[in-house]
Structure formats: structure tokens, C-alpha cells
């Protein structure tokens, strides 16, 4: 999935099940996410 700014990919494993859900943005991990936290995170890239 992609729009003009972000490409979102589902990946198989980030080695971080204890703090799932996890996204990796570029080289950085963002752990223990919720939908709200994820929205906030995306906003921080605006």
C-alpha cells in the first residue's frame, strides 16, 4: 500500500513479539502501538 508519502508493507517478523504491534519506519522501531499511537506517529512525519 502506498500514497504519495508513505509506503506500507506487512512484514513477517521484526523480532519483537513482546512489544507488538510494531512498525519499523526507515531504520527505527516503534513498539507497543495502538491505532491512536500510530496516527500520532504518522502525524509526526508531516
Amino acid at each position, binding site marked *: 500500500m502506498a500514497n504519495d508519502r508513505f509506503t506500507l508493507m506487512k512484514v*513477517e*517478523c*521484526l*523480532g*519483537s*513479539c*513482546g*512489544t*507488538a504491534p510494531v512498525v*519499523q519506519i526507515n*531504520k*527505527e*522501531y516503534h513498539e507497543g502501538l495502538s491505532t491512536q499511537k500510530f496516527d500520532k506517529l504518522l502525524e509526526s512525519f508531516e
Partner: protein
Amino acid sequence: MNTFKPVLTEYIDQQDCHTLPFYKRVGGYTALDKVLKMNPEDVTQEVKDSNLRGRGGAGFPTGVKWGFIPKDSNKPKYLINNADESEPGTFKDRLLMNKAPHQMLEGMVIAAYAIGCHTSFIYIRGEFYKEYKLLEKVVTEAYENNLLGDNILGSNYSLDVVIHRGAGAYICGEETGLIESLEGKRGWPRIKPPFPAIEGYLQSPTIVNNVETLSCLPHIMNRGAGWFKSIGPEKGPGPRLFCISGCVNNPGVFEEPMGVSLKDLIFDRAGGIPDGKQLKAVFPGGSSSAILTADEAMDVMMDFEELVEKKSMLGSAGVIVMDETVNMVQACLNIARFYAHESCGQCTPCREGTAWLVKMLTRLVNGGGKPDDIDMLFEITDNIGGLIDFSKGSFGKTICPFGEAVAWPVRSFVEKFKNEFMEYLTHLPQEKVVA
């Protein structure tokens, strides 16, 4: 009640626990100092006596593995630290690298000294970028403090450590796939024998050890094999990092003695299952281990031998907990999909079989299942991972154990929760398909 004191993770809650000054303050590198004054053979013997078994998944005795290094070979010897942690459900090595990197590095130097190696590698998975940066710093720091490089701690022993980043392939955690990858090739596992200890990296004797295995070594050398063996079952003793994830209140890494009960891990350490739901099934040792039903799980010790008796395995000690709300057919599809994605494609049974499993399970969850599908699922898993007769230890339709790693869990799902698979043949459950 719980008198066990963590060994590997004793200091991880403290500030700056990853730094060299901190590690030295708590006795770091004293084991190395001691080891460098010993005969390498005596170091190997001590590790053999400790009965330390590999923490990566296969559980092979570490000292015995070292002992396979040919004594008369004039080729260089290599040590590889397997930090490619990629078994679903496992996240302990990352913790050790973040919180106790010097403990791991000290273990590496001890292992390298024991096998007569002067160039060693850390093969770290590509996603662990932060950990990679940290290890770079740690290694540089070690060079500056005479803990790596020439004449370590004034001895005449020298060792270089090179950090190599993987590119995120599951198969590169398998030791021969890892070696191929390190040589710059596609990570296709090699046929064994020859085992890496005879012909590994650049056709030279090579030992591949897991992060946690190496982290145990300073403690064994400091406190002795007898102390190590006194923790947990004698045939597979020592402290162990258990990773608990899935349907629990408090997921995370818990250090416990080997042989701890799975029930205690789930309901005590990990705080039980949220909202008072019932336990349904557990992966005891990463997604490659056969699942245990709730009844089986409540009555098992986390010990190599006992889990083999239960037709599963301790593997990487990645405990994945599933509660009553988990749809086993969907979960099985999820697992199959992972393996189909990660199959390296070298062996036909695995490359084709994993894709078949995904196609069949997808068809099943979409309502297109056929009456023979259940039998065919068994047939396919048997064709990928051999007819599973644990008493005969039947392995071997593929070059590496990946075949078994997909066949065992998938078969266990279908066997133990056959009803749920059968239900899909007649009517689709309420939850909508996520395929």
C-alpha cells in the same frame, strides 16, 4: 518460592548496563582474564562438563560442538555469533545485545580462544539497526581497552571481531545458510556432512553459536561447570531466557532456570491471560515447534527432553500463547504463510509444499474446502517434513530442518484441532476471512 536469581539478565534494569565501565564494575571480563591463563582444551572441557546446550533452537551441546574442530588442521578457525534471531516468538537475543553486549562479547572471546580462532563474526539480522550501531560502539570500545585485537589483556592471544549485517531472511539463521550468506552468496543451506566444524566458512573449521549461548560462557568460567549444572535438569541445565508473547497480560523476556513449568511461565511471570479467558494452545519453542493443547501445556516442564516426549521441542524458548478466541485454522494459515514466504526454494518438497499448504488453507478458510483436504494436509506435511515418527527420529526430505519446522506445527494444528478444520467444510465461522 522463587529463589532463582537471574544470571544473564541480572543487571538489565540498571542504567548504563550496556556500557563497559558498568560491566567491569559487576565483574565483567574477569572470566576472560582467567580463561586466557588456561589451556584452550581445559576451557572446552569445562564447557562440556557444564552440559550447556545451544540456545538458538537445536539445543546441541556447546562443548561437544567445539570438540569437533579438527586438532590437526592448519586452516584458520572461525567463530560466528549467530545474532540473526528470526524465529517467530523469539526476542531474547535482541534484549541481550541491547542490555548486556559486553557479556556476549566476553563470551565470544572465550569461545574463540577455546577453539583457536583469531577472526570472529557477529552475524546480526538487518532489521536490528539500533543494535548494530550499539555493537559497533561496543566492539570499538573493546579494541580500545585491549579486550579485542592483539595480545588481549597482555596475553599472546589475538582476536578480531567483524560485524556483518544480514538482510532479513529467516533461513540465514540456519548455520550453513548463514555461512553461505556471510561468504556473500545466497543463503542456501548446505548438505551436512561435512558439518561446519569441519568445513564451514571459506571451507575452514567454523563454530556457530547463538548470542544467549555465548552470553552463558563468562558465568560458566567464573562459577564453574558444577554451579551451572546445578541449575535445572542435569542433561540440559542453566538459566534460560523465555520469551512469552501472544494472549498474556504481561508479555516479555523472563529468565528462569531450565525445567521451569510452562504453567508458571504463563500464569505467574507473564500474568496470565487477559479478561479471564481460557487457554487454548501454546507454541512452547517458537513457531517451528508443534503446538501443545491447553491440557498438555498445563502439565509440562520447559526442558529439552520432556518437550521431545510431548512430540514438540524447546527450540528457541519462544512461548506463544493462544486463548480461546483464536481461530486455529486462521492461525495455521498465518504460520503456513510465514514459512511459504521464507522457504529459500532450494529443495522442491519445501518450496512447493509450503505454497500448497497456503493455497489449500486459503481455500479452506474461504469456504472452498473439500472432504479429503484434511488428509491431504497431512500428506503434504509428511512430504515436506518426512513422516513424523518421533520414536524413529525420522527426518530428512530437505537439506535443512526448515522442512520439519513447517511440517511439525502445521500437522499439530490439524491433528489437535481437527474439529475446527472440519467445521470449515460445512459452514464458515462468524469471523470474516483475513486471507
